[in-house]
Protein backbone atom coordinates (compact mmCIF):
# COMPACT_ATOMS: atom_id res chain seq x y z
CA UNK A 1 0.00 0.00 0.00
CA UNK A 2 2.83 2.29 0.86
CA UNK A 3 4.38 1.82 -2.53
CA UNK A 4 1.11 2.33 -4.28
CA UNK A 5 1.31 5.51 -6.34
CA UNK A 6 -2.06 6.94 -5.50
CA UNK A 7 -1.76 6.48 -1.82
CA UNK A 8 1.78 7.72 -1.97
CA UNK A 9 0.41 10.92 -3.39
CA UNK A 10 -1.97 11.32 -0.49
CA UNK A 11 0.78 10.59 1.96
CA UNK A 12 2.93 13.14 0.23
CA UNK A 13 0.26 15.77 0.46
CA UNK A 14 -0.13 15.18 4.18
CA UNK A 15 3.59 15.08 4.75
CA UNK A 16 4.18 18.21 2.71
CA UNK A 17 1.45 19.95 4.61
CA UNK A 18 3.20 19.11 7.85
CA UNK A 19 6.55 20.09 6.43
CA UNK A 20 5.42 23.41 5.20
CA UNK A 21 3.75 24.36 8.44
CA UNK A 22 6.57 23.27 10.60
CA UNK A 23 9.80 24.87 9.50
CA UNK A 24 12.63 24.57 11.94
CA UNK A 25 15.06 27.24 10.98
CA UNK A 26 18.77 27.16 11.40
CA UNK A 27 20.06 30.65 10.87
CA UNK A 28 23.64 30.64 9.75
CA UNK A 29 24.37 34.14 10.85
CA UNK A 30 26.96 35.37 8.40
CA UNK A 31 27.11 39.02 7.50
CA UNK A 32 24.59 41.66 8.36
CA UNK A 33 21.51 39.56 7.67
CA UNK A 34 21.76 37.86 11.03
CA UNK A 35 20.32 40.92 12.68
CA UNK A 36 17.16 40.63 10.62
CA UNK A 37 16.25 37.26 12.12
CA UNK A 38 15.38 38.44 15.67
CA UNK A 39 12.78 40.97 14.51
CA UNK A 40 11.36 38.35 12.21
CA UNK A 41 10.88 35.98 15.11
CA UNK A 42 9.75 38.43 17.76
CA UNK A 43 6.44 40.07 18.36
CA UNK A 44 6.36 42.61 15.56
CA UNK A 45 6.58 40.15 12.72
CA UNK A 46 6.09 36.90 14.62
CA UNK A 47 7.18 34.23 12.23
CA UNK A 48 6.07 31.56 14.65
CA UNK A 49 2.52 31.89 13.46
CA UNK A 50 3.67 30.18 10.29
CA UNK A 51 5.06 27.35 12.32
CA UNK A 52 8.55 28.70 11.95
CA UNK A 53 10.76 28.29 14.93
CA UNK A 54 14.41 28.28 15.58
CA UNK A 55 16.36 25.09 15.70
CA UNK A 56 19.61 25.01 17.54
CA UNK A 57 21.38 22.28 15.67
CA UNK A 58 21.42 21.13 12.06
CA UNK A 59 20.16 17.67 13.02
CA UNK A 60 16.79 19.12 13.90
CA UNK A 61 16.57 21.87 11.31
CA UNK A 62 14.64 22.00 8.06
CA UNK A 63 15.66 25.34 6.67
CA UNK A 64 19.14 26.73 6.46
CA UNK A 65 19.31 30.49 6.27
CA UNK A 66 22.44 31.96 4.76
CA UNK A 67 22.10 35.51 5.93
CA UNK A 68 24.67 37.36 3.91
CA UNK A 69 28.07 37.05 2.27
CA UNK A 70 29.99 33.85 2.64
CA UNK A 71 33.71 33.93 3.13
CA UNK A 72 35.60 31.01 1.69
CA UNK A 73 36.43 29.95 5.17
CA UNK A 74 32.78 30.02 6.20
CA UNK A 75 31.69 28.12 3.14
CA UNK A 76 33.32 25.01 4.48
CA UNK A 77 31.24 25.27 7.64
CA UNK A 78 28.08 25.96 5.74
CA UNK A 79 28.59 22.87 3.63
CA UNK A 80 29.22 20.91 6.77
CA UNK A 81 26.05 22.18 8.38
CA UNK A 82 24.05 21.57 5.25
CA UNK A 83 25.22 18.02 4.97
CA UNK A 84 24.43 17.39 8.62
CA UNK A 85 20.79 18.36 8.10
CA UNK A 86 18.23 15.64 7.50
CA UNK A 87 16.29 15.29 4.31
CA UNK A 88 14.18 17.02 3.21
CA UNK A 89 16.02 20.25 3.81
CA UNK A 90 15.78 23.71 2.31
CA UNK A 91 18.16 26.61 1.89
CA UNK A 92 17.30 30.28 1.80
CA UNK A 93 19.86 32.81 0.61
CA UNK A 94 19.61 36.31 2.01
CA UNK A 95 20.50 39.46 0.21
CA UNK A 96 22.67 40.35 -2.70
CA UNK A 97 25.85 39.01 -1.18
CA UNK A 98 24.52 35.50 -1.26
CA UNK A 99 23.12 36.00 -4.73
CA UNK A 100 26.07 37.48 -6.56
CA UNK A 101 28.66 38.57 -4.05
CA UNK A 102 27.22 42.01 -3.60
CA UNK A 103 29.73 44.61 -2.65
CA UNK A 104 32.28 41.90 -1.96
CA UNK A 105 32.12 40.53 -5.48
CA UNK A 106 35.83 41.07 -6.08
CA UNK A 107 37.14 40.06 -2.71
CA UNK A 108 39.62 37.27 -2.70
CA UNK A 109 37.88 35.56 0.18
CA UNK A 110 34.16 35.89 -0.48
CA UNK A 111 32.25 33.59 -2.77
CA UNK A 112 29.88 35.07 -5.24
CA UNK A 113 27.23 32.51 -6.12
CA UNK A 114 25.90 30.47 -3.27
CA UNK A 115 23.89 28.17 -5.49
CA UNK A 116 26.99 26.85 -7.12
CA UNK A 117 28.03 25.28 -3.88
CA UNK A 118 24.81 24.23 -2.22
CA UNK A 119 21.33 24.15 -3.75
CA UNK A 120 19.29 27.18 -2.83
CA UNK A 121 15.53 26.94 -2.85
CA UNK A 122 14.67 30.55 -2.27
CA UNK A 123 16.70 33.73 -2.64
CA UNK A 124 15.51 36.87 -0.98
CA UNK A 125 16.92 40.00 -2.48
CA UNK A 126 17.70 43.23 -0.79
CA UNK A 127 20.68 44.61 1.02
CA UNK A 128 19.57 43.53 3.53
CA UNK A 129 16.06 42.13 3.11
CA UNK A 130 13.68 43.44 5.68
CA UNK A 131 11.65 41.05 7.86
CA UNK A 132 8.66 41.46 5.59
CA UNK A 133 10.78 40.24 2.74
CA UNK A 134 12.02 37.37 4.84
CA UNK A 135 8.49 36.33 5.66
CA UNK A 136 7.57 36.63 2.03
CA UNK A 137 10.47 34.33 1.30
CA UNK A 138 9.18 31.82 3.82
CA UNK A 139 5.73 31.92 2.33
CA UNK A 140 7.27 31.31 -1.06
CA UNK A 141 9.19 28.40 0.35
CA UNK A 142 6.01 26.98 1.87
CA UNK A 143 4.33 27.19 -1.47
CA UNK A 144 7.21 25.40 -3.11
CA UNK A 145 7.16 22.69 -0.47
CA UNK A 146 3.47 22.09 -0.92
CA UNK A 147 4.00 21.79 -4.62
CA UNK A 148 6.93 19.51 -4.08
CA UNK A 149 9.21 21.87 -5.93
CA UNK A 150 11.52 22.62 -3.07
CA UNK A 151 13.74 19.74 -3.98
CA UNK A 152 17.15 21.25 -3.47
CA UNK A 153 18.17 18.35 -1.22
CA UNK A 154 17.32 15.97 -4.00
CA UNK A 155 19.27 17.95 -6.55
CA UNK A 156 22.22 18.09 -4.26
CA UNK A 157 22.27 14.33 -3.98
CA UNK A 158 21.84 13.81 -7.67
CA UNK A 159 24.45 16.33 -8.70
CA UNK A 160 26.74 15.79 -5.84
CA UNK A 161 29.81 15.41 -8.04
CA UNK A 162 29.26 18.75 -9.64
CA UNK A 163 28.71 20.48 -6.32
CA UNK A 164 31.72 18.75 -4.89
CA UNK A 165 33.88 19.93 -7.77
CA UNK A 166 32.82 23.51 -7.16
CA UNK A 167 33.35 23.19 -3.47
CA UNK A 168 36.75 21.65 -3.85
CA UNK A 169 37.82 24.49 -6.04
CA UNK A 170 37.72 26.69 -2.98
CA UNK A 171 38.31 24.25 -0.21
CA UNK A 172 41.62 22.88 -1.35
CA UNK A 173 42.32 20.85 1.73
CA UNK A 174 39.23 18.64 1.78
CA UNK A 175 38.96 16.82 5.09
CA UNK A 176 35.31 16.23 5.76
CA UNK A 177 33.29 13.30 7.01
CA UNK A 178 31.49 11.42 4.30
CA UNK A 179 28.10 12.56 3.14
CA UNK A 180 25.43 9.89 3.34
CA UNK A 181 23.60 9.70 0.08
Amino acid sequence: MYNDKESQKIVDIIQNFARKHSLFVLAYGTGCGAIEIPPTMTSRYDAERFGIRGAATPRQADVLLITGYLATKTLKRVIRVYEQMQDPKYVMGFGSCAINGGMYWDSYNTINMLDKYIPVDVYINGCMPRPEAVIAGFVKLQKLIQEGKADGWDRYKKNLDEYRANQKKIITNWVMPDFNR
Partner: protein
Amino acid sequence: MEGIGYKILGALLTTLLAFTVGMFYAGFRRKIIARIQNRVGPPVYQNFLDVLKLLSKKTSVNHGIMQHLAPLWLITMSVSTLMFIPVLKDGLFFTNLNFSGDLIFLLYIMVFGPLGMALGAGQTGNPNSAIGVSRGLTQMVGFEIPWIMAIVALMIQYKTTSVTGLLDIQSQNGTWMMFSSPLAFIAALLAMPGMFRYAPFDIVGAPAELASGPISEFGGKYLSTMMTSGSIFAFVKLTLYVDLFMGGASNLIELVIKTFALYMYPVLWGAVSPRFRTEQAVRYFWGWPLFFGFAALIYAAF
Protein backbone atom coordinates in the same frame (compact mmCIF):
# COMPACT_ATOMS: atom_id res chain seq x y z
CA MET B 1 -8.02 -13.10 32.90
CA GLU B 2 -11.33 -11.96 31.45
CA GLY B 3 -10.43 -8.31 31.84
CA ILE B 4 -7.20 -8.58 29.97
CA GLY B 5 -8.66 -7.48 26.68
CA TYR B 6 -10.19 -4.45 28.30
CA LYS B 7 -6.94 -3.75 30.01
CA ILE B 8 -5.03 -3.72 26.75
CA LEU B 9 -7.64 -1.60 25.07
CA GLY B 10 -7.63 0.71 28.06
CA ALA B 11 -3.88 0.97 27.92
CA LEU B 12 -3.98 1.93 24.27
CA LEU B 13 -6.73 4.42 24.82
CA THR B 14 -4.91 5.95 27.75
CA THR B 15 -1.77 6.33 25.75
CA LEU B 16 -3.68 7.98 22.96
CA LEU B 17 -5.42 10.26 25.38
CA ALA B 18 -2.20 11.20 27.06
CA PHE B 19 -0.57 11.90 23.74
CA THR B 20 -3.40 14.06 22.49
CA VAL B 21 -3.84 15.98 25.67
CA GLY B 22 -0.13 16.44 26.12
CA MET B 23 0.27 17.70 22.58
CA PHE B 24 -2.55 20.16 22.92
CA TYR B 25 -1.21 21.36 26.23
CA ALA B 26 2.15 22.01 24.63
CA GLY B 27 0.36 23.87 21.86
CA PHE B 28 -1.55 25.90 24.37
CA ARG B 29 1.68 26.68 26.09
CA ARG B 30 3.19 28.06 22.94
CA LYS B 31 0.05 29.99 22.19
CA ILE B 32 -0.15 31.43 25.66
CA ILE B 33 3.47 32.44 25.72
CA ALA B 34 3.00 34.06 22.32
CA ARG B 35 0.02 35.99 23.57
CA ILE B 36 1.98 37.12 26.60
CA GLN B 37 4.68 38.35 24.26
CA ASN B 38 2.06 40.16 22.18
CA ARG B 39 2.36 37.76 19.29
CA VAL B 40 -0.22 35.76 17.44
CA GLY B 41 1.59 32.53 18.01
CA PRO B 42 1.33 29.22 16.25
CA PRO B 43 -1.90 27.33 16.00
CA VAL B 44 -2.77 25.09 18.93
CA TYR B 45 -2.26 21.96 16.87
CA GLN B 46 1.23 23.11 15.84
CA ASN B 47 2.95 20.36 17.83
CA PHE B 48 1.12 17.66 15.93
CA LEU B 49 2.49 19.14 12.75
CA ASP B 50 5.95 19.24 14.22
CA VAL B 51 5.82 15.59 15.21
CA LEU B 52 4.38 14.61 11.88
CA LYS B 53 7.00 16.57 10.02
CA LEU B 54 9.81 15.05 12.02
CA LEU B 55 8.38 11.61 11.40
CA SER B 56 8.25 12.29 7.69
CA LYS B 57 11.90 13.20 7.55
CA LYS B 58 13.50 10.97 5.01
CA THR B 59 16.80 10.31 6.69
CA SER B 60 18.03 9.87 10.21
CA VAL B 61 21.44 9.83 11.72
CA ASN B 62 22.73 8.15 14.82
CA HIS B 63 26.08 7.73 16.45
CA GLY B 64 25.53 4.25 17.76
CA ILE B 65 23.21 1.87 19.48
CA MET B 66 22.77 3.93 22.63
CA GLN B 67 21.61 6.92 20.64
CA HIS B 68 19.26 4.71 18.71
CA LEU B 69 17.81 3.46 21.98
CA ALA B 70 17.70 6.82 23.75
CA PRO B 71 14.21 7.90 22.59
CA LEU B 72 13.06 4.39 23.33
CA TRP B 73 14.02 4.63 26.96
CA LEU B 74 12.12 7.89 27.16
CA ILE B 75 8.95 6.70 25.59
CA THR B 76 9.09 3.40 27.43
CA MET B 77 9.35 5.32 30.64
CA SER B 78 6.49 7.66 29.79
CA VAL B 79 4.10 4.98 28.65
CA SER B 80 5.03 2.56 31.43
CA THR B 81 4.59 5.23 34.05
CA LEU B 82 1.25 6.04 32.54
CA MET B 83 0.30 2.41 32.89
CA PHE B 84 0.79 2.54 36.63
CA ILE B 85 -1.04 5.77 37.32
CA PRO B 86 -4.80 5.82 37.66
CA VAL B 87 -5.89 8.40 35.17
CA LEU B 88 -9.46 8.24 36.32
CA LYS B 89 -10.54 7.06 39.72
CA ASP B 90 -12.77 4.34 38.41
CA GLY B 91 -14.12 3.20 35.16
CA LEU B 92 -13.27 0.56 32.71
CA PHE B 93 -10.51 2.00 30.65
CA PHE B 94 -8.49 4.60 32.39
CA THR B 95 -7.58 2.95 35.66
CA ASN B 96 -4.76 1.09 34.01
CA LEU B 97 -2.48 -1.25 35.92
CA ASN B 98 -2.59 0.87 39.02
CA PHE B 99 -3.23 -2.16 41.20
CA SER B 100 0.50 -2.63 41.16
CA GLY B 101 1.22 1.06 41.20
CA ASP B 102 3.29 2.27 44.06
CA LEU B 103 4.74 5.68 44.66
CA ILE B 104 8.31 4.58 45.23
CA PHE B 105 8.09 2.53 42.11
CA LEU B 106 6.70 5.48 40.21
CA LEU B 107 9.49 7.72 41.44
CA TYR B 108 12.07 5.28 40.23
CA ILE B 109 10.55 4.44 36.91
CA MET B 110 10.33 8.13 36.21
CA VAL B 111 14.12 8.27 36.27
CA PHE B 112 14.46 5.41 33.86
CA GLY B 113 13.85 7.59 30.84
CA PRO B 114 16.13 10.54 31.55
CA LEU B 115 18.95 8.18 32.44
CA GLY B 116 18.61 6.26 29.18
CA MET B 117 18.24 9.49 27.30
CA ALA B 118 21.39 10.75 28.97
CA LEU B 119 23.24 7.67 27.83
CA GLY B 120 22.11 8.24 24.29
CA ALA B 121 23.08 11.87 24.47
CA GLY B 122 26.43 10.84 25.84
CA GLN B 123 27.14 8.60 22.95
CA THR B 124 26.72 11.35 20.41
CA GLY B 125 30.00 12.81 21.54
CA ASN B 126 28.59 16.30 21.38
CA PRO B 127 29.95 18.35 24.27
CA ASN B 128 26.71 20.29 24.47
CA SER B 129 24.82 17.09 25.10
CA ALA B 130 27.12 16.08 27.90
CA ILE B 131 26.91 19.50 29.50
CA GLY B 132 23.15 19.34 29.23
CA VAL B 133 23.11 15.93 30.85
CA SER B 134 25.35 17.13 33.62
CA ARG B 135 23.04 20.03 34.25
CA GLY B 136 19.92 17.94 33.99
CA LEU B 137 21.08 15.33 36.46
CA THR B 138 22.21 18.02 38.85
CA GLN B 139 18.89 19.73 38.62
CA MET B 140 17.16 16.42 39.15
CA VAL B 141 18.96 15.98 42.46
CA GLY B 142 17.71 19.45 43.29
CA PHE B 143 14.01 19.08 42.66
CA GLU B 144 13.63 15.43 43.61
CA ILE B 145 14.37 16.13 47.24
CA PRO B 146 11.46 18.48 48.06
CA TRP B 147 9.24 16.40 45.84
CA ILE B 148 10.08 13.15 47.63
CA MET B 149 9.66 14.94 50.92
CA ALA B 150 6.16 15.90 49.98
CA ILE B 151 5.38 12.37 48.90
CA VAL B 152 6.91 10.78 51.98
CA ALA B 153 4.93 13.18 54.11
CA LEU B 154 1.74 11.96 52.45
CA MET B 155 2.78 8.36 52.78
CA ILE B 156 3.63 8.66 56.44
CA GLN B 157 0.55 10.66 57.23
CA TYR B 158 -1.89 8.33 55.53
CA LYS B 159 -0.04 5.08 56.00
CA THR B 160 -0.15 3.93 52.44
CA THR B 161 2.39 4.01 49.68
CA SER B 162 0.15 3.50 46.69
CA VAL B 163 -1.51 6.12 44.56
CA THR B 164 -4.77 4.26 44.68
CA GLY B 165 -4.63 4.21 48.44
CA LEU B 166 -4.14 7.96 48.58
CA LEU B 167 -6.98 8.46 46.12
CA ASP B 168 -9.27 6.33 48.23
CA ILE B 169 -8.38 8.29 51.33
CA GLN B 170 -9.20 11.53 49.55
CA SER B 171 -12.57 10.14 48.47
CA GLN B 172 -13.35 8.94 51.95
CA ASN B 173 -12.37 12.17 53.64
CA GLY B 174 -14.05 14.19 50.96
CA THR B 175 -11.19 16.63 50.83
CA TRP B 176 -8.14 17.05 48.70
CA MET B 177 -4.63 16.52 49.92
CA MET B 178 -3.77 20.06 48.96
CA PHE B 179 -6.07 21.15 51.77
CA SER B 180 -5.45 18.37 54.23
CA SER B 181 -1.67 18.44 53.79
CA PRO B 182 -1.05 21.97 52.56
CA LEU B 183 2.65 22.00 53.41
CA ALA B 184 3.36 18.92 51.35
CA PHE B 185 1.40 20.43 48.51
CA ILE B 186 3.40 23.63 48.66
CA ALA B 187 6.66 21.72 48.65
CA ALA B 188 5.55 19.61 45.70
CA LEU B 189 4.26 22.65 43.89
CA LEU B 190 7.51 24.52 44.33
CA ALA B 191 9.41 21.55 42.99
CA MET B 192 7.11 21.15 40.02
CA PRO B 193 8.58 23.68 37.55
CA GLY B 194 11.88 21.86 37.87
CA MET B 195 10.22 18.70 36.78
CA PHE B 196 8.74 20.38 33.74
CA ARG B 197 12.02 22.04 32.87
CA TYR B 198 10.34 25.24 31.76
CA ALA B 199 11.97 28.56 32.47
CA PRO B 200 13.53 29.45 34.82
CA PHE B 201 14.61 25.83 35.02
CA ASP B 202 15.22 25.21 31.32
CA ILE B 203 18.91 24.86 31.97
CA VAL B 204 19.09 21.49 30.29
CA GLY B 205 17.98 22.57 26.86
CA ALA B 206 19.14 26.15 27.27
CA PRO B 207 18.75 27.00 23.55
CA ALA B 208 21.05 29.99 23.48
CA GLU B 209 23.78 28.33 25.47
CA LEU B 210 23.84 24.68 24.71
CA ALA B 211 22.20 24.33 21.31
CA SER B 212 19.30 22.38 22.85
CA GLY B 213 21.52 20.34 25.09
CA PRO B 214 21.16 16.57 25.21
CA ILE B 215 18.99 16.42 22.12
CA SER B 216 21.52 18.27 19.98
CA GLU B 217 22.25 15.29 17.82
CA PHE B 218 18.76 13.91 17.56
CA GLY B 219 16.61 14.58 14.56
CA GLY B 220 13.89 13.04 12.47
CA LYS B 221 12.25 9.97 13.92
CA TYR B 222 14.28 10.17 17.09
CA LEU B 223 13.22 13.70 17.87
CA SER B 224 9.61 12.97 17.03
CA THR B 225 9.61 10.03 19.42
CA MET B 226 11.07 12.26 22.06
CA MET B 227 8.46 14.92 21.54
CA THR B 228 5.74 12.31 21.76
CA SER B 229 7.25 10.98 24.91
CA GLY B 230 7.57 14.46 26.31
CA SER B 231 3.92 15.24 25.78
CA ILE B 232 2.85 11.94 27.30
CA PHE B 233 5.12 12.49 30.23
CA ALA B 234 3.79 15.98 30.83
CA PHE B 235 0.34 14.47 31.07
CA VAL B 236 1.66 11.76 33.37
CA LYS B 237 3.19 14.27 35.73
CA LEU B 238 0.08 16.39 35.79
CA THR B 239 -2.13 13.40 36.40
CA LEU B 240 0.10 12.25 39.20
CA TYR B 241 -0.11 15.65 40.85
CA VAL B 242 -3.85 15.68 40.41
CA ASP B 243 -4.15 12.19 41.83
CA LEU B 244 -1.99 12.97 44.80
CA PHE B 245 -3.11 16.44 45.73
CA MET B 246 -6.33 17.27 43.96
CA GLY B 247 -8.40 14.21 44.62
CA GLY B 248 -8.04 12.63 41.22
CA ALA B 249 -10.73 12.84 38.61
CA SER B 250 -13.80 10.79 37.98
CA ASN B 251 -14.33 11.81 34.38
CA LEU B 252 -12.26 13.14 31.56
CA ILE B 253 -13.57 16.68 31.69
CA GLU B 254 -12.72 17.00 35.34
CA LEU B 255 -9.33 15.57 34.60
CA VAL B 256 -8.68 18.04 31.82
CA ILE B 257 -9.80 20.98 33.89
CA LYS B 258 -7.68 20.03 36.85
CA THR B 259 -4.58 19.18 34.88
CA PHE B 260 -4.88 22.27 32.76
CA ALA B 261 -5.21 24.47 35.79
CA LEU B 262 -2.17 22.86 37.27
CA TYR B 263 -0.29 23.08 34.01
CA MET B 264 -0.78 26.79 33.79
CA TYR B 265 1.31 27.27 36.89
CA PRO B 266 4.72 26.26 35.49
CA VAL B 267 3.80 27.66 32.09
CA LEU B 268 2.94 31.09 33.36
CA TRP B 269 5.89 31.14 35.68
CA GLY B 270 8.10 30.16 32.79
CA ALA B 271 6.64 32.71 30.45
CA VAL B 272 7.95 35.60 32.47
CA SER B 273 11.19 34.14 33.79
CA PRO B 274 14.75 34.27 32.65
CA ARG B 275 16.96 31.27 33.23
CA PHE B 276 18.68 30.14 36.41
CA ARG B 277 22.21 28.91 36.44
CA THR B 278 22.50 25.30 37.49
CA GLU B 279 23.75 25.95 40.96
CA GLN B 280 21.17 28.66 41.44
CA ALA B 281 18.45 26.21 40.52
CA VAL B 282 19.71 23.64 42.98
CA ARG B 283 20.06 26.26 45.67
CA TYR B 284 16.51 27.36 44.97
CA PHE B 285 15.18 23.84 45.37
CA TRP B 286 17.17 23.34 48.51
CA GLY B 287 15.85 26.54 49.98
CA TRP B 288 12.17 27.19 50.55
CA PRO B 289 10.89 23.99 48.93
CA LEU B 290 13.10 22.01 51.27
CA PHE B 291 11.86 24.01 54.20
CA PHE B 292 8.26 23.29 53.32
CA GLY B 293 9.16 19.66 52.75
CA PHE B 294 10.60 19.44 56.24
CA ALA B 295 7.63 21.19 57.67
CA ALA B 296 5.33 18.77 55.86
CA LEU B 297 7.29 15.81 57.17
CA ILE B 298 7.20 17.06 60.71
CA TYR B 299 3.50 17.84 60.37
CA ALA B 300 2.93 14.36 59.02
CA ALA B 301 5.00 12.54 61.58
CA PHE B 302 3.62 14.23 64.67
